[in-house]
């Protein structure tokens, strides 16, 4: 019934072929096409995910039993620092930027981002920033002051290798890349939307990407300023963070967390966005309370700048300051809760299809809520004092970052992989991937709650043989190994399905947003024609001319 002819599966659009002129490796690395850049971001994130994952396994082997000597204390410090730094800056951020890069123009009906060449610059700054960071291993030793690089430990006198210098330079490069990408994506979303796609009709993923990029724009400068200052301290013998010569170590903490807490939302909001796309499609219902999901994202974005000192409850800033930050931190639970309930309400009475993507989205709802609840407990500062720097915190942050970001990303990857490659990821392998991830994840991190409450401190290379500690740590290590296997299943699935997977066709999930209106994979210029956009679900309107959404809108 549609007035726009969409080609079927395997049938290329007329312009798709000849424009893809630069094939091969050179074609990829010299590309300014947002789709190729997006995929390269994803590949870079996958490689760094491998590195960060190996580091995690090394730590878990060391901690498998008490008083182990698999890693020396010095190496252990380097490994946990690199694990955290890698996973935040080289995995979580690029995987989300990559998906945003690939999807934003497609979902708003544009042919590319606003500044394609700047886009390539962002990608390569990230890649080489990561290379700089990892070069530290062969340049005398990796950074070993934790991913948040606390001063004065990170100062020259206490971190004598070049590690922290490489950390600073690598993150500066990646950070500048992130700011550039943020500018690019914001201009794209504001200026390149297809006719009819007003702000109120934007897919929620785009909403959340937009808020995230604004957070990047305002939070990354705090990190960049801190990195510049520590670099000046170390290379020009300055005094910013040296307390005994007039500097201030606490200022580093303020600055780092002024970046660090918005950063938490920078790496979770796009995952929220993906969940908001996946759950409605697989529940066969429009999102429940679109306006509330969008508005709560903005609320989270604003609040994220007002909570940083909850990372510093143990510093001793005083009761009134601690109370203020405890209240603002507790407040964030409200908009987050709004989202969780909206997603559940979307599933309610839906005809749910439990594809792998939907399984990950559902798993996300459960594990992220656990992480959210432990987060609420940590916002109450007397609790925080009790468990600060124990494994309770490690459990919490992995429940939100792995259980939140990574589960969300997997839901998104299973959902959009067909669009990117034209082929479906294998559902059977996908289900193995999901269940091994879920079991491995909970085995690894749930026991850490208990270990933390028992007083096991993080960032120490070993622990004494107290009753139960060895067993719980062994459970955690076995879980980590299962997660390692689950990642291999995923990589195997990608490699096999990319070549031999089931053909996807344009719109395998019967989804409603614009990216599904073009071929899979899309041609270089993305669209030949854009369907009319008169509601939030243009493809629903196209498929159901008898009952389009815009007729029911008031």
């Amino acid at each position, binding site marked *: 019934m549609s007035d726009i002819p969409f080609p079927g599966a395997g049938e290329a659009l007329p312009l798709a072929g000849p424009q893809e002129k630069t094939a091969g490796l050179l074609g990829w690395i010299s590309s300014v096409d947002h789709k190729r850049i997006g995929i390269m971001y994803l590949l870079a994130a996958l490689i760094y995910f491998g590195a960060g994952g190996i580091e995690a396994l090394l730590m878990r082997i060391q901690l498998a039993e008490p008083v182990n000597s698999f890693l020396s204390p010095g190496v252990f410090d380097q490994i946990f620092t690199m694990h955290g730094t890698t996973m935040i800056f080289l995995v979580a951020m690029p995987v989300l930027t990559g998906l945003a890069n690939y999807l934003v123009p497609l979902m708003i009906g544009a042919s590319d981002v*606003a*500044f394609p060449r700047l886009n390539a610059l962002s990608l390569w700054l990230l890649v080489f920033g990561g290379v700089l960071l990892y070069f530290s291993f062969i340049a005398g030793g990796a950074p070993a002051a934790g991913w948040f690089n606390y001063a004065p430990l990170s100062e020259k006198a206490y971190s004598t290798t070049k590690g922290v210098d490489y950390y600073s330079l690598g993150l500066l490069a990646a950070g500048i890349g992130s*700011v550039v990408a*943020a*500018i*690019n994506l*914001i*201009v794209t979303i*504001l*200026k390149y*939307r297809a*006719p*009819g796609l*007003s*702000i*109120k009709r934007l897919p929620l993923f785009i909403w959340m990407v937009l808020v995230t990029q604004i957070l990047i*724009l*305002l939070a*990354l*400068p*705090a990190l*960049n*300023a*801190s990195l*510049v*200052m520590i670099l*000046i*301290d170390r290379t*020009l*013998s*300055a*005094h*910013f963070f040296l307390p005994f*010569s*007039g*500097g*201030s170590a606490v*200022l580093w903490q303020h*600055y780092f967390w*002024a970046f660090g807490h918005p950063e938490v939302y920078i790496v979770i909001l796009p995952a929220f966005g993906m969940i908001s796309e996946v759950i409605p499609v697989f529940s066969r219902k429009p999102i429940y309370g679109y306006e509330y999901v969008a508005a709560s994202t903005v609320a989270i974005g604003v609040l994220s700048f007002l909570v940083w000192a909850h990372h510093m409850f143990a510093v001793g800033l005083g009761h009134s300051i601690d109370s203020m930050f405890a209240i603002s931190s507790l407040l964030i639970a409200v908009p987050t809760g709004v989202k969780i309930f909206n997603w559940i309400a979307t599933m309610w009475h839906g005809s749910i299809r439990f594809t792998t993507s939907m399984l990950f989205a559902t798993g996300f709802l459960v594990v992220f809520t656990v992480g959210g609840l432990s987060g609420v407990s940590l916002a109450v500062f007397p609790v925080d004092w009790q468990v600060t720097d124990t494994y309770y915190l490690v459990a919490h942050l992995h429940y939100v970052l792995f259980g939140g970001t990574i589960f969300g990303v997997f839901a998104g990857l299973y959902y959009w992989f067909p669009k990117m490659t034209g082929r479906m990821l294998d559902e059977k392998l996908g289900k193995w991937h999901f269940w091994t991830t879920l079991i491995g994840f909970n085995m690894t991190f749930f026991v850490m709650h208990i270990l933390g409450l028992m007083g096991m401190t993080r960032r120490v290379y070993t622990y004494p043989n107290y009753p139960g500690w060895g067993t719980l740590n062994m459970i955690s290590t076995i879980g980590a190994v299962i997660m390692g296997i689950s990642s291999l299943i995923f990589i195997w699935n990608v490699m096999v399905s990319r070549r031999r997977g089931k053909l996807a066709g344009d719109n395998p999930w019967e989804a409603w947003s614009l990216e599904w209106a073009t071929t899979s994979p899309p041609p270089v210029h993305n669209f030949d024609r854009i369907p009319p956009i008169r509601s939030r679900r243009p493809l629903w309107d196209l498929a159901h001319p008898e009952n389009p959404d815009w007729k029911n*809108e008031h």
Partner: protein
Amino acid sequence: MNTEAQNIEAQTFVESWDNNKLAMLLFLLSEGTFFAFLIIAYVYYHAVSNTGVEAAKVLDPLKTGIYTIFLLSSSFTVWIAEKSLRRGNQRAFRGWLLVTIILGAVFLFGQGSEYLHLYGQDVTISRNIFGTSFFTLTGFHGFHVLLGLISLAVLFVLALKGEFAEKHSSAVETVALYWHFVDWVWVVIFSVIYLWTVF
């Protein structure tokens, strides 16, 4: 129908923004935040480590104030250059662009001579926390002025080649935006560092 009309209205409002200018505005928002952190650091050490005493001793607010006038007037001249271009007066456009570059260069020269003078008195970035916070903040600003001068010089060369035949140039307006930012950040920095030694 009403919402449809509103949508179109909202769309045209955003579309009236030039891409490059919008990107520059966003960039400056980010840059402003970056400078805010360096400025807060300076203020923090002024309060906590009493760096104001040394600032009052070694800085010369009058001399830097004169150089500041050069920088601030360059914001005015770049505005006139833009206006001249819009009126189609190429000669005036080029002339005021050149004046802007000269004014900016004089400011940078002033900063260089101040640095040399301080260095002669053994005030360096590594001597104490005043030197650290002072040179980092003013140094980053100077670096931004330099980048602005390079961009203006590129515009000037292009203008000589007659690249700006149109009355609206996104490049000129974008660089001008950056230049205003650099000037107004200096107003804050000058107040915090130099005026604070006087008042």
